[in-house]
């Protein structure tokens, strides 16, 4: 290189750079071998580029992230892997072994051991000849963390440590002076190592400078945490295929294609898509829902309720088991009988609800809410397996096996009686809250005479692959009754008119069955999950929030769901809140809005006027009433 005209300065370092908009010259000083101090002898070299080269540092990141210790090696002037915590081994340069023959040998040994650990007997082989380097061919690095200039480090010309965040030696010294002495504090105070190189260029230097400043060995100062990933990892590759339509499964019922063809709007309910309402030409949601509601109340409407969770319970201890989970009297249920059932968490709060049907002495069928299906199945299995393994009970999910078609309205029975069937749909033989199995239009069905609308209604379970065919039979046979498909919105209106709650909408995990007025569902003479919690002092408070109905005083205003309720307008914050509106709809059949709400001491307030605090600042007077707005005696569902 000398012959090519390159100047080489042995034992020298660059102590400064001049230039305004770019490098114009560098100041070279000589330094003694111990690197303790510069010897002076400044020489200025004119140039427009300064290139630096540092030594290698073992990439100990993975070792450290796997829980391994990091140790400072004085001879090699670098951090090397120490004791491991997991089954891993560092070899080659990342183990501080920089020579080729050491890399090959360590790699070979580690590979052989790994193979053996996996149960293979490796075949002997030899590594390529690296050309053994003579001892001492590569001398250890002479570390130079900063140029030891005579003045105090705070008065140094800029000596950069982190080349991305422009952290200098002086910054490290200043941090220490201000009391940020821990390596993590220095890092966070100076931004050392926060660049996109994750400190790979400057961190070791920075820590060594800190050690110099604190007059401690580097080993004692230690390192900052090596955070994963080793190098930047794209969000996209990490997310993989799970974006857009593959972000989360879209669950569709067996009848989905029919709803789509019928122009339904869909509601997202958990992973499911459910028909929300079926607008006809020129109809908005309000019109469509009004039409669907009136069809159910006056003649005949049809709904896809297939998303309900469904569980079969078999076994000699089924009654014992279900009596520990559900609150009502299970033992007293006759074969063929249906019951509304609720289950509580051990904290006494309503967890889920549904219909329980007794299909035999040792055979039950349960439904759950759409969103609660998996949770309830898991809950039952957990208790059965972990707490009561002595009970002989088997649970099987049949959510997907059965599709559920609801026929609701005064004409429901006539429709079914007019079809090819071996089931007697007569009032006497098939009373309210019972179940029958048989054949309908040539397919096997289970029919539940239950009602979430308050009308005469039948819920028909049919094998899912046959559901579209049966649905179309209903549509054809129901034409004479003006059969009308309805979605979740109409279902909500119909059930709210009857004061039926939706768990998760009218309850929120802080509501007991007593709050909902479901006392009659609570067995008094036996234990069940959550029962003990109901007698804790807070669950007995008279001012707990209770389910009530609300009517706007004279107004026709529909309250937004979620609206807060207060005693009277005005008052300085925090204004005491009585509760909130959980459900609110315009009732097409009553001709005015209705709402359900949780209101403090609500049942005792019936007839009182309280106020809805709207977000625009207005207060609407509302009357507290019974949550049952329609057919309070339940005559229609019993016809």
């Amino acid at each position, binding site marked *: 290189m000398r012959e090519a005209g390159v100047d080489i300065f042995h034992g020298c370092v660059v102590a400064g750079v001049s230039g305004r908009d770019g490098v114009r010259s560098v100041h070279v000083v000589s330094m003694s071998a111990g690197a303790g101090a510069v010897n002076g002898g400044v020489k200025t070299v004119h140039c427009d580029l300064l290139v630096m080269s540092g030594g290698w540092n073992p990439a100990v990141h993975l070792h450290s992230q796997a*829980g391994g210790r990091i140790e400072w090696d004085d001879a090699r002037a670098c951090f090397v892997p120490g004791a491991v*915590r997991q089954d891993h081994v560092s070899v080659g340069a990342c183990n501080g072994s920089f020579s080729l023959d050491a890399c090959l040998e360590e790699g070979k040994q580690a590979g052989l051991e790994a193979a053996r650990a996996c149960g293979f007997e490796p075949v002997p082989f030899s590594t390529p000849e690296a050309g053994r380097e003579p001892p001492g061919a590569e001398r250890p690095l002479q570390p130079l963390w900063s140029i030891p200039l005579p003045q105090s480090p705070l008065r140094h010309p800029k000596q950069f440590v982190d080349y991305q965040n422009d952290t200098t030696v002086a910054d490290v010294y200043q941090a220490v002076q201000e009391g940020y002495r821990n390596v993590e504090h220095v890092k966070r105070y100076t931004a050392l190592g926060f660049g996109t190189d994750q400190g790979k260029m400057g961190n070791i230097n920075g820590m060594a400078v800190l050690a110099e400043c604190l007059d401690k060995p580097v080993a004692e100062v230690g390192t900052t945490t090596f955070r994963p990933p080793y190098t930047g990892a794209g969000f996209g590759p990490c997310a993989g295929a799970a974006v857009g339509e593959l972000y989360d499964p879209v669950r569709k019922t067996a009848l989905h294609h029919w709803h789509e063809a019928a122009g339904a709007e869909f509601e997202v309910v958990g992973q499911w898509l459910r028909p929300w309402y079926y607008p006809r030409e020129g109809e908005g949601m309000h019109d469509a829902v009004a039409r669907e509601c009136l069809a159910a109340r006056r003649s005949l409407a049809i709904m896809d309720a297939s998303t309900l969770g469904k569980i079969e319970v078999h076994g000699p201890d089924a009654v014992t088991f279900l009596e520990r989970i559900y609150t009502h009297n299970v033992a007293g249920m006759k074969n063929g009988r249906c019951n509304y059932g609720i289950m509580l968490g*051990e*904290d006494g709060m309503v967890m889920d609800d549904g219909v329980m049907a007794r299909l035999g002495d040792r055979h039950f069928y349960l439904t759950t809410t759409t969103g609660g299906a998996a949770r309830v199945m*898991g809950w039952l*299995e*957990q208790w059965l*397996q*972990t*707490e009561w393994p002595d009970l002989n009970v088997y649970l099987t999910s049949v959510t997907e096996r059965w599709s559920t078609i609801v026929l609701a309205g005064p004409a429901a029975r006539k429709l079914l009686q007019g079809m090819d069937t071996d089931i007697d749909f007569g009032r006497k033989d098939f009373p309210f809250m019972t179940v029958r199995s048989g054949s309908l239009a040539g397919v096997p069905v289970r029919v539940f005479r239950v009602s979430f609308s308050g009308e005469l209604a039948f819920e028909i379970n049919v094998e899912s692959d046959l559901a579209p065919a049966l649905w179309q039979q209903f549509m054809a046979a129901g034409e004479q009754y003006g059969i009308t498909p309805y979605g979740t919105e109409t279902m909500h209106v119909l059930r709210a008119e009857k004061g039926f709650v939706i768990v998760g909408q009218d309850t929120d995990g802080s509501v007991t069955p007593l709050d909902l007025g479901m006392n009659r569902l609570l067995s008094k003479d036996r*234990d069940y999950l959550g*029962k*003990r*919690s109901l007698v*804790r*002092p807070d669950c007995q408070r008279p001012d707990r929030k209770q389910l009530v109905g609300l009517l706007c005083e004279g107004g026709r205003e529909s309250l937004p769901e979620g609206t807060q309720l207060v005693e009277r307008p005005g008052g300085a914050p925090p204004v005491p809140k009585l509760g909130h509106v959980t459900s609110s709809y315009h009732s097409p059949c009553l001709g005015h809005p209705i709402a359900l709400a949780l209101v403090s001491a609500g049942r005792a307030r019936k007839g009182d006027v309280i106020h809805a605090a709207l977000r625009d600042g207005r207060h609407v007077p509302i009357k507290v009433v019974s949550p049952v707005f329609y057919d309070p005696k339940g005559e229609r569902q019993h016809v």
Partner: protein
Amino acid sequence: MLLINCPWCGPRDESEFGYGGEADITRPADPDALTDEEWADYLFMRKNPRGLHREQWVHEHGCRRWFVLERDTVTYRFSDDTT
């Protein structure tokens, strides 16, 4: 990522499992006989140790069996001999 040994299916990825918290909490035989404090103790109080923890898991996306394992809550290593 934990590799969990299902006693029935063998070692499987953590994402197939559900976690059931502290094991060996027995439901009181006669809840009505308990004071509110005793009931709250059963309901809510947990050992939550830093170290070995006996805990319940369920192979949710597999055989749906519940089982108990012991695991170190610092190293996340499962003890070998638990079932």
